[in-house]
Every structure is written in C-alpha cells, then in structure tokens.
C-alpha cells in the first residue's frame, strides 16, 4: 500500500464516466446502481440472464451485461469477467448473495485487471473461515462461543463436550449462514451424529472437518457494521439487531437494538471487538461482525461477513450516509472520510424484508404476475424494491421483492411509521410477507424488545391473519361478478334474471329528515321490571313492529338486507313501538345463507342506528336458530349472545313442550335487562281449547318460578306471555275467550299477541285479543304488508281505537316510514316475492303457516303434482285431527311432507281413485269411533301413513318432545312403522330431547373453525358456526373475500351494472368509491366473461365464469379456484396419465381422482371432500392408449359438486343443485 491516500473528492473525479458493473440482480443490483450514479456519475452496468433482461430493476442501469439463458449464470465468475473485460469495465461490485461469497472472485478480478469492490481474496479467507476467525478472536481476547479450537476428532469432540457441557453443535468448517450445523443433546447421540455430520460435510462442502460449539439458547443476534480503508482507518457503526429470524434467515432488522439489555457499554465493547478484528487482518472495504448475545449480555463472536449485507440500509438511515458510496470510494483508494466527529447516529431505523412468499403456507415462494403495486411513502420511509405492477415475478430466483425501511427519532415512532407504511403498501396478484410483518410489528413482545431468536418459532399466532385487499376493491369485484352474471348468485334464488333483463331504476330513495329530539321513547329501556310496569299501567295497547323480520320473512323470504334496515331503522325507532322485531326465526339463517351478513353484527348495528326502541328476537326452543335440536351448551352460548343484542327474547316450541325452553329461560331470566317472552304455539282445532292452553300457561309460570327462584305471583309479573298463531287460524271469538281467560287467571301477566294474515281475519282477531286484554300486538308498516305476514299497523290501531281502547303510536312517523318503505319494497317484490300470493281462508282447515303456504304449494307445482294440490290440502286437514300438534315450524313442514308423500304415493299406486280412498279413510278415522269401524276399514287405514318419512316417525316417537295432546292411536304407528310397530310404541318417550343430547366440545369446534378459516374466529363467528356450520363458513369466507356487501346499493345487489354505468358506494370505513363499468364481454369459449371497470380511476379487469365452456383451445384454460374445495386442479405443470373418475361418480374424501406425472414423479390427486363428480375436463388412460395429456398448473381437471344433498325427511339424494324441492317427497330443500 505505497500509494498516498486520496481524498474522497479526488477519487470521485477519477471514477466519473467509468463503467462499474454490478454482478448481481434484483434488489442489490438496483441499490448499487443508485450509488454508482449519484455522486460518482459513473456508468452503471448490471448483469442479466434471459429471465431478467427486461426486469424492472434493470431500468437504472445504463448497460446490461447479458449472461444468456442459464439462470445460474450469476454464479459464473469466469463468464462474467470475460464479458466484463471485453466491455471495458473498470470495477465490479458483487452485491450480496450469488458470487459475492466466492473467494476466488477478487483475485480473478485482479488478474483480469478489474477492480473488485470489496476485500481481497486473502482477507475473505481469513475472516470468512469460521475456525480461523475464531482463533484470531481468541488471540485478540474477543469472546467466542465455547467449543473446540479448530476441527476435532470424535474423541476430541467428546472431551470438549465434557468441558463445555451439553447441548453442543457440530459445525462444518466449510459451512456458513446457519448451514452444516448438527445439534447434539446427549452423549449417546454424539458418535452417530459425528459420523453423519462429517460424511455430509464432505458431501456438501468438500471438507469433512467439524468443530464443536456450545449450543446457546435465549440469544439475540447482534451485528456491527464496519468500514475500513486501505490506510488503516476503521470506523464501526452502532449495532444492528437481527434477532427476528426464521430458520436462520433474518426477517426484521433494527438499529439500535430495542432490547433493554443493550447497554451503551455493551455497544462500545462490541464495536471495539469489531475494530480490533478488522485491524488485525488489515482488512479494507465493508464487513459485518456478527455476535450472539445471551440474556445476561455476554457476547460471543460467531462470524464475519466480508460483503455488503441486505440490512445495510438501516445503518445508512441511522447515520444519514451511503455505505455503498463509501465502499466504492475506499475500493478506489480513497481515505475513509467517516469519523466519530462527522458521523454520528441521528435516527432509529427498522427494516422488514418483503418477500413474495405465503407465510401461511410454510413461506412457499409465490411467483407470478404482480397485478397492482403501490409503494408506501411519506416521512421516514425508504423502499428498495425490484418489482413493479405488471412484472412477472420469476420462480428461478429468491423471493425478495423489496426492503421496507422506516426511520425516525424513537422506537415508538418507528413502530408507528412501519404500521402505517405496511398498511400503505399494496402488492396485488401474489402473496407477500406484508401482512405477516404487520403481525410481527403489532406483537406486544416484539414491541417490548424482549424476545430471542426463537420468537417466530415460538409464536405460531403470528400466522393467524387475514390477508386481504382493501374493501372497496373487494366489493368492486363482487359488483363485477353480479354484473357479468346478470343475477346475484349469493341470494340463492337461481338465475332469476339475465344481463339483458329489464332493469329497475337505480335505487336513489328520497329520505325525509328526522329531527334529533323529535320523539321521546317512553319505555325505560334497560330495566325489565320498569318496562313491564309501564306496559301494564299505561292503559294503552302497545305495538311490536315486524317490518324488518317476520313480515319480510313471509313476504320476501327474508332477503331484506341490513343495508335497507339501515335506511328504515331510524324511522321505525321513532314510531312509538314497544319493540322492533329485527332478528331470529329463519332470518338468522338467511342472513348468512343469502344476505351474506353476520346476524349478530347486524343486531349490534341496529342498536346504533335505532338506539331507542327495544329489539325483539324469535328463537325456536331446542332448535335455537336452526331446524334440529341442539345440545344445551350451544343453546346457552347462543342465548348469551342473543341477550347481549336483543331486549325481548320470544321463544316458542312447536309442541308447547315448555321444558325444551329451559336453557334459554335460564339465560334470559338471569338478566334484569332482558324480557323473557315464552310463547304458546296456537292452533284452532279439536282438543286445542282454552282449558288446554291454560294448562300450558300454568307450565310456563311454574318453569319461570323455578328458574328465577321466585314465587308464581312474581313469575307472572316478570315475563311477557306470547301467543303465537303462526298459521293465522284462530278466529276473533276464540281469541276473546282465550285472552280473557288467561287475564282472569293471571291478572298481572302481560300478553303479547302474534298472528299472520293468512285467513284474512288479522284485524278483527287482533282487535278481539286487545279488547280481551292483550297488552301488545304485532303489526307492520303498511308498505310492507302483503299476504302471509302480519297486518298493517294503522288500520289495526284504528280498529282497536273504535273498540274504545287507546294507542300511543307516533302515527306521523309511521306514515313517513311507510313513504320510505314504499321506495324500497318494489325491488324485493320484483325479485323475492313468493310464487303463490293472496289470502287463503282455507288455512283454517289445512293449517299451513305464513310463508310455508306458498313455498309448499310451489313445491307441488315444481314436482309436477299441482293437480293433486287440493287432495294434499284435504289430507292436511284430515291428518291434523289424528296426529295433533301445532301448525308451526318445524311441525308444519312435517305435516306438509306427510301429506305430500301420502297423496303422491297413493296416486302412483292407484291414481285419483287411490288418493280419494285414503282421504275417505282419513275422514272416517277422524269422525268415527273405533268401535264403529269395519274390519275392512281397519286394514285399509294402514295405507294412510305408509309413505311417511323419518321426521314424521321421529315425531311419533316423541323425539322432538312431548306431543301436546298425547300420542295418536296405535293404528297410526302400525301404518307408519309397519309390522314392527309394537317396537316403535315401546320406544316412545315424553322426555325433552335435551335430556339425551350430549354437550359438544366447544374448544374442539373452535379449533376446527380456526383450521377452516386460517385465523382465530371471533366469538360471533364461533356461535354462527355452532348453529349452522356450513352456511357460517360460506359467509365467513364471503365476508373475508368481499367485505360487507351491505355497502352495495340495492339495485346493484340484485341486478349488477351494465356497460357505461357509473355508481358511487361507500366502504365500511366510510370512504367513497366511484365505479365506472367500462365493458362486460360476452362469454368466451371457456364461458368466461371479462369485466373491465375503473375504481377510483384505477383500472381493473376481472374474469367471471358465466357459462359452461364450449371451445377447446388452450389459451384460456379454465383454472380451478383454489378457494373452492370442489374444484380440483393440477398441482403443477405435468402430464396427466390416468383419470379414475367419470361424471356422476360418487367419491369419498381421500379417494384418488387422477394421477399426474410431474418430472417423472407420480402424484396422486385425491378428492378433497366427499362429493359427486360433475365434470372431468381432461382424460387420460396411459396404460390403455400410451398417451399422456399435458396439463398446466392450476388448470381445472375435475369439478366436484357437494355429495348430493339428502332430503332431510325422506333421505333420497337430491341429484341437482338447483332443485328446491325433493323430487321424491316434495320437501322444500
């Protein structure tokens, strides 16, 4: 080193205009090119293989050194040097990775007359070899991890292990970066491990020599960046903390260390060690001295990296310098210009590595097209990336996409900036580590700085997150899909329109304003006893409004969305109603099934936009919010959530088996805010008379007293009694009699009457109930009243007032609500109204309730039995007299199915005559005493229930609960069960099904849900899953995929958009979005329609499958939707050689569907679920025809459909997805 030192400026002048080559790619290439250009104004060149020659990171380079097609050419030092020489390159920077660790690179450069920007080969060997650097450190008094001095024999290893204690590591002398390490925990393992490790070291690194080191636990990884010039000047920077690692790969780097154990003294000590090492070997250029520091602050030198490192940027941000610039200058002979005076730390800095990997799938590399790219910015943010939108991220190289660095004055500020910057960073099309880093940044342990190198391994919760795009984008995709199809598949009403169907006008309602203090709600919400006292003493008839629940259940199949609730709710809140029934019944299920909304979130929101009025829910005793009995712990868990969001809990049991309500009573009565409203199911038939129902009321009072631990008088005052005439069959005269008798027996009991309009006598029947003393009646806003739901509020009130009673409604607001509703209902009428409409007075005979009136009869029509409908209704009327219970869900469905099966069965066997025969038989059974029946009739009657299904038989056995008027006569059993009917009779029970249902393992259910959705579920998600597992999962996936669909305007929800439309919508955060639909293509040969639109000026294109494929060209292969478990695609490119299934086959989960030869490996593709094969898109049978069929990764090969649903009553498989009724028994499915 005889040359005199040059100043930086002089060197910079010398470099200007020279070609400097970066022998690297990706992030390092781009990073180094920047420094070559900025101050030196040299000519930056980079190497590029075919894969990379048009990559975005090449753009900054003035020239490319093309290395050809071999993707590994970056390692080919000889080739690079030969090319570089021919192009007049003055210096080469190796970057990091690739050839930067090749010790021969510097000397080969020297031989080629090219300056190597880095250390000499000798220095690399001295500091890069772990054993040598260890010896050097010990000579200098720098602590190293206790272990052997140099390579050892197995005997020596045993000695060392004795001295330093177990556990130990056997490390390959030639290994590095966490490679070639073998851990030994016991002495017995040592021999075996040594032989293996040595053999492998030979195989891997060409060097079998091993050394021994203590295996340290609870350690931090701390490193010191050093720069030295060729004149002995050395500068050490503050530490970088790289403790957050996964499999020895650094993920997050920080300077200074946030670890409380990092003291100023330790920092100075580490820097001094680093300087000593560098001076001792007369090293020049950049290097990093790496230490492990144990929890007591004891450091151990582990290795020295003799190159620029990935994490250098945080040091640059801490000091406000450019390390690469300094490195180049030093390499060209400049004197180091950094010293303690001019180079002082100014900021804290934090770097995360943004890789194209999917952390939730074992950090699998995720190559592919980057569809969106929006990088973060603003104060304190630096991004070193190698990607852009439209770039096909290659699979041949590592997955590093960007380095995101933030810097600021303090650790807390860093965390804030990083949180913000990760939120701003949008990379679309492929999975990245962005959300994973967000999890790390938000983790309390990380924020406290108290963690060790095992942080990632020991914190599996970091993997539980939802990786999704902004809601606006997701919702726009939903709108695009509906638009391409022309109908909304999620409302599950079939293909109810096409893209070209006539459209309704856009939904732009005129909404009158509501003055904030306009109306004072008189009921003392939140205090059960005070509310009940108020109702009892007010001297008025009160009204419960069912506009958004029961009436829309009957009249529009519950498709009324939260979106419209949000509009109408605030008006309803000011109408003077006792309560708003806004949840429960079938709505709970349909909210998930078709409205894609969480029902309890919906309820919570109701309490925000309509905060004054009590909220009411309907639950079905043991069936809770579903259709089959649930165990007690689900009832309670659900009950607790219900009580949180609803004030009035109306609960009914279709058999009036009061014991079935007990678990809910326990939850509701425990709260002083909730009003428990057990409801009696009403029928109007022989046996169901006033004394019978008084007995039921007595049972309710008894159970209430027992649960609440109070007297019967107190129990009477503590609840509301519901009267539930679901079919709408009880005439005014019966209501008068019933209500006055109850009032007379239980004078303090508040009565709440509920009925449907089916028989047309709603108003007089409700009037009679009110006149007889019912306190509360159910009605709805006129604009929503149709046929089968409740009656209208103002007309009912007018009639009640004519009877001399008082009401306390805010009629003006009811009119306003009606006006608003008038603008909403046409959309629902158009798309969701029932098939058969109108009043049906015959309901008093057949007893089909509310909404079921239409849907059941529609079933008969769809099954081709409309001509038998009159007989079915007659059968219903007859059977109600024999097997007696209430015309309420699910009893009404059971009766209907029994009638349908009996009539169609008789028809199949004997035509109309056969049908008339069983009807005659039925009539005789209902009207004649047993003694009057002929022997012939006694045999003939056994035909009546011969077609009955399991549900009917279970009902007869008492599996739903105790039949209200006792078991039917034995011949019914003989008819339904056949010759073994005596066994059935012996099995009968009057116990509540609750007594035999075992609790389910809630923790296990939570685990299985977590597994399904790859994140922790919310409490609500768990409760939904417990009640309706399949639909809950579909809704959770929907919400994860699209967001809150209630943000989509009503007309778009049903119809989507057409080309040229523009629409504004808000997302859940209140951000406005403008969506302009540009073009919706006609389906191509693959049935795919391309939807092009802009969202907030950003262009999007979405492919939507709208029809079956017709063509066969390979350009637009139909791809399997990875989220759709029923679509089975090819796992990678390969050759399909055998397909085992054909359409129509039933397959079991785990059964082999087809086999693909991938690189001569045979991969069996198994059915992911039970199901039926719907389509097989490609077929091969190599053994037969010696032909293989090439397939592409992700290409759809087999389309399954759910194992055909089985009819819940007759269990016949239902062959097609679009069947709404069982082809065998007519059950609605």
């Amino acid at each position, binding site marked *: 080193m005889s040359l005199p030192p040059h100043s930086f400026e002089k060197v910079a002048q010398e470099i200007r205009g020279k070609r400097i080559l970066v022998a690297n790619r990706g992030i390092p290439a781009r990073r180094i090119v920047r420094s070559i250009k900025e101050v030196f104004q040299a000519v930056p060149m980079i190497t590029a293989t075919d894969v990379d020659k048009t990559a975005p990171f090449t753009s900054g380079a003035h020239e490319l050194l093309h290395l*050809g*097609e*071999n*993707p*590994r050419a970056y*390692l080919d030092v000889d080739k690079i040097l030969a090319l570089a020489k021919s192009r007049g390159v003055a210096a080469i920077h190796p970057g990091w990775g690739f050839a930067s660790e090749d010790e021969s690179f510097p000397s080969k450069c020297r031989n080629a007359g090219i300056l190597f920007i880095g250390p000499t080969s000798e220095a690399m060997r001295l500091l890069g070899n772990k054993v040598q650097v260890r010896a050097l450190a010990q000579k200098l008094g720098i602590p190293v991890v206790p272990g052997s001095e140099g390579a050892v024999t197995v005997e020596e290893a045993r000695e060392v292990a004795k001295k330093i204690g177990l556990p130990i590591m056997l490390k390959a002398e030639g*290994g590095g970066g966490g*490679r*070639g390490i073998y851990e030994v925990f016991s002495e017995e393992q040592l021999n075996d491990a040594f032989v*293996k490790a040595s*053999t*492998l070291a030979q*195989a*891997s690194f060409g060097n079998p020599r091993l050394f021994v080191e203590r295996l340290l636990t609870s350690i931090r990884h701390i490193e010191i960046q050093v720069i030295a010039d060729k004149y002995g000047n050395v500068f050490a920077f503050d530490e970088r903390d790289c403790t957050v690692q996964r*499999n020895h790969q650094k993920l997050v780097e920080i300077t200074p260390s946030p670890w409380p154990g990092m003291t100023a003294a330790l920092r100075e000590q580490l820097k001094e060690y680093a300087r000593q090492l560098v001076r001792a070997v007369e090293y020049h250029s950049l290097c990093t001295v790496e230490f492990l520091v144990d929890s007591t602050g004891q450091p151990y030198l582990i290795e020295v990296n003799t190159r620029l490192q990935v994490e250098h940027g945080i040091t640059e941000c801490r000091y406000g310098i450019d390390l690469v610039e300094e490195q180049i200058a030093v390499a060209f002979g400049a004197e180091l210009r950094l010293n303690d005076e001019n180079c002082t730390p100014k900021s804290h800095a934090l770097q995360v590595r943004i890789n194209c990997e999917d952390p939730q*799938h*074992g950090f*699998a*590399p995720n190559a592919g097209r980057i569809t969106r790219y929006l990088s973060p910015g603003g104060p304190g943010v630096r991004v070193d990336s190698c990607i852009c939108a439209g770039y096909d991220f290659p*699979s*041949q*190289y*590592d997955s590093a996409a960007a380095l995101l660095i933030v810097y600021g004055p303090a650790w807390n500020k860093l965390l804030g900036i990083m949180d913000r910057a990760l939120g701003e960073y949008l990379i679309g099309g492929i999975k990245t580590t962005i959300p994973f880093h967000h999890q790390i940044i938000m983790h309390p342990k990380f924020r406290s700085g108290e963690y060790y190198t095992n942080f990632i391994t020991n914190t599996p919760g970091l993997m539980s997150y939802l990786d999704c795009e902004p809601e606006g984008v997701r919702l726009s995709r939903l709108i695009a899909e509906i638009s391409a199809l022309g109908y909304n598949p999620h409302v599950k009403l079939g293909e109810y329109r096409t893209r070209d169907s006539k459209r309704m006008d856009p939904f732009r309602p005129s909404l009158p304003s509501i003055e904030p203090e306009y109306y004072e709600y008189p009921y003392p919400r939140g205090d059960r006893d005070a509310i009940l006292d108020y109702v009892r003493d007010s001297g008025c008839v009160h009204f419960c409004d069912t506009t958004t629940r029961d009436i829309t259940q009957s009249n529009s199949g519950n498709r009324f969305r939260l979106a419209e609730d949000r509009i109408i709710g605030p008006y309803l809140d000011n109408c003077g109603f006792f309560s708003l029934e806004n949840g429960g019944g079938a709505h709970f299920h349909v909210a998930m099934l078709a409205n894609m909304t969480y029902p309890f979130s919906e309820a919570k929101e109701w309490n925000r936009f309509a905060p004054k009025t009590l909220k009411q829910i309907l639950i079905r005793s043991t069936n809770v919010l579903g259709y089959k009995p649930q165990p007690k712990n689900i009832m309670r868990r659900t009950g607790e959530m219900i009580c949180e969001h609803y004030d009035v809990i109306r609960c009914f049991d279709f058999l009036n088996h009061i014991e079935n309500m007990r678990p809910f009573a326990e939850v509701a009565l425990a709260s002083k805010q909730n009003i428990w409203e057990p409801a009696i199911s009403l029928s109007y038939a022989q046996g169901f008379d006033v004394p019978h129902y008084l007995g039921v009321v007595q049972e309710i009072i008894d159970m209430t007293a027992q649960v609440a631990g109070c007297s019967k008088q107190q129990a009477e005052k503590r609840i509301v009694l519901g009267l539930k005439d679901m079919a709408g069959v009880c005439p005014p005269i019966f209501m008068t009699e019933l209500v006055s008798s109850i009032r007379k027996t239980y004078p303090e009991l508040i009565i709440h009457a509920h009925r449907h309009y089916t028989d047309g006598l709603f108003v007089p029947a409700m009037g009679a109930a009110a006149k007889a003393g019912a306190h509360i009646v159910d009605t709805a806003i006129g604009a929503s009243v149709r046929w089968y739901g409740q009656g209208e509020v103002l007309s009912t009130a007018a009639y009640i007032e004519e009877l001399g009673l008082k009401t306390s409604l805010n009629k003006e607001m009811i009119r306003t609500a009606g006006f608003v509703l008038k603008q909403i209902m046409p959309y629902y009428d158009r798309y969701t109204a029932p098939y058969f409409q109108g009043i049906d007075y015959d309901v008093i005979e057949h007893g089909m309730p509310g909404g079921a009136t239409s849907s059941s009869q529609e079933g008969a029509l769809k099954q081709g039995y409309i001509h038998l409908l009159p007989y079915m209704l007659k059968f219903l009327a007859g059977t109600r007299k024999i097997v007696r219970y209430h015309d309420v869900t699910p009893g009404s469905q059971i009766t209907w199915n029994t009638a349908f099966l009996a009539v169609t069965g008789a028809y199949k066997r004997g035509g109309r005559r056969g049908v008339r025969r069983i009807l005659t038989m039925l009539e005789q059974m209902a009207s004649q005493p047993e003694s009057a029946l002929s022997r012939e009739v006694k045999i003939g009657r056994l035909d009546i229930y011969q077609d009955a299904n399991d549900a009917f038989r279970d009902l007869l056995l008492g599996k739903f609960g105790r039949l209200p008027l006792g078991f039917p006569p034995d011949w019914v059993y003989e008819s339904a069960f056949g010759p073994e009917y005596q066994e059935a009779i012996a099995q009968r029970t009057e116990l509540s099904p609750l007594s035999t249902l075992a609790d389910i393992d809630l923790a296990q259910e939570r685990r299985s849900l977590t597994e399904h959705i790859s994140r922790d579920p919310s409490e609500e998600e768990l409760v939904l899953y417990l009640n309706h597992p399949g639909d809950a999962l579909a809704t959770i996936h929907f919400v994860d995929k699209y967001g809150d669909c209630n943000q989509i305007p009503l007309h778009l929800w049903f119809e989507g958009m057409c080309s040229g439309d523009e629409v504004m919508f808000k997302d859940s955060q209140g951000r406005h979005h403008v969506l302009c639909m540009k073009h919706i293509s006609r389906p191509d040969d693959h049935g795919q329609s391309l939807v092009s639109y802009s969202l907030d000026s950003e262009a999007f294109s979405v492919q939507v499958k709208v029809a079956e494929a017709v063509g066969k060209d390979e350009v637009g292969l139909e791809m399997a939707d990875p989220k759709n478990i029923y679509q089975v695609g090819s796992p*990678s*490119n*390969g*050759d399909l*050689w*055998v397909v085992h299934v054909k359409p129509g086959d039933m397959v079991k989960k*785990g059964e*082999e569907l087809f086999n693909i*030869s*991938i*690189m*001569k*490996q*045979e*991969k*069996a593709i*198994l059915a992911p679920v039970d199901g039926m094969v719907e389509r097989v898109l490609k077929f091969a049978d*190599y*053994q037969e025809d*010696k*032909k*293989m069929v090439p397939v592409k990764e992700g290409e759809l090969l087999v389309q399954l459909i759910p194992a055909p649903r089985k009819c819940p009553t007759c269990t016949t498989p239902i062959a097609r997805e679009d069947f709404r009724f069982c082809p065998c028994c007519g059950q609605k499915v």
Partner: protein
Amino acid sequence: MTLAQSLLGSEQDVESKERIYLCPSCSSTLDVAHYLAQKDALDPFDSVLALRQWSGRGQLRRQWISEPGNLFVTWRLPQPHEQWSGLLPILVGFVLCQGLRTVGVDVFLKWPNDLLWQNSKVGGILIEERGDVLLAGIGLNLASCPEPFLLREDHAFPAQNLVSALPDLTILELWLRLVHLAQFRYSFILSCFDPLEFVQFIEPVLAFVGTRVRITDHRSIIQGVYVGLSPDGGLILKTENTSRILYSGSLSTEKW
C-alpha cells in the same frame, strides 16, 4: 433364524431407529407401503423391503421385472418444502448414488430417475405421492437384470447388474448401509441447501452433463447439449439456436 438374520447372513444387531418392514413376497413394496402409511404404521424414513414382487412397477404402471436377489424397497420420505417438489427423484437418486459410492460402486444418476453403472441401467426410482404420503420406490439390480428382450422397446440403455461391483453384502445389509446415510443426507440437503445450490453441487454425479443427448417423449425428440439442471428439476438443453428447459422425456445419448 429369523428372516432378518437370514437376510443379514449373521446374527448381528440391526441398529436403526427407523423401521424396516420385510416382506418375503408382495405385489409391490409401494402397495405395502401405501397400506402401512394409511394405517399410520409407516413414518418418514421407514421402509418396506421385499425379496420378491409379483407385480413390481415402474413409471406409468409399467412392469418392473422383480427377480429374487435384487433390491426392491420403498422408502417413505418426509414432505420437503414445495420448491423441492420437482427435484425429488433427483434428490433421492443423488443420495443413493452417494451411498453406493461409499460401498465402492461408482454409479451415476441419469436424469431424472435412473441409476447407471458403466453406462448401463442398474436401478430406478419411482416417486409416488398420495396426499401427505411421499414414497420412493427403489429397484436395484444386485444379482440379475432382465434379459434384453424383456426390456421395453424404447429403452434408453441396456440393463446390467452389480454382482461384480458390490462387496459381499446381503440385501438387507446393503439397504441398511444405504438407508442410514441416505436419510441423513436427505435431511441435511433439504435444510442446508437451496435448490439452486443443490443442482450445481450434484453435477459431478449426473451422467452425461456437458455432452450431446437426446430427450424423447411421447410428443417429440429433441437433441442438444445437456447443460445442467434448473433449480426446479428441469433439464437445461442447449440446442442449436436456443436453450430449453425440459421437464419430461427420456434421456439417451447420441449413439443410442
């Protein structure tokens, strides 16, 4: 004497934590292994060894002629990271080559799944994956090899056996030696290498690298210089004006 002893030829202990199931005779060790795996009785690195197979199979259910005296074994592998999926036969082939070299047999790996000794085929590897279960079926001609007329028409290399090359070991002894180190090598490579490094590192074991070869598959025949392997297991073939990465086909040398 137990079956194990008779196979070992002595009463020495077998020291291995991994199970080796021994079948006097079976349809195919792959079938037995799939069955055992299904019953949770076959852990990664366990193996199934048979003396005789009555329907041994090669790729695409081709027959693997299974004369007694040869090695027929199925070895269960742990699932490697996805990026290794294309390299599995090569990885297994490599660790077997290394193992055979320790007993003095200088075998080479013919891309992607054949073992060659003195330019003749002495063994093959078939990877089968079903769900989580990854199996390597391994066949080695120790004592005999199929007569030429039994080979399929388009075979690339003549068959050969290793009688003259192998030291005096029983089948089980040989497999014990192979599996012991193969297991360790397999794990080690997966934890210490990335695919790019691996394909570079194994070049000395690959047969015909750097020479002109012909790749035949059911669609085409391509000729060129075998440059090496790509990190996803493809064969990089340099043809006259371009270079291609091939993922399927059978490799043969020009003279064949």
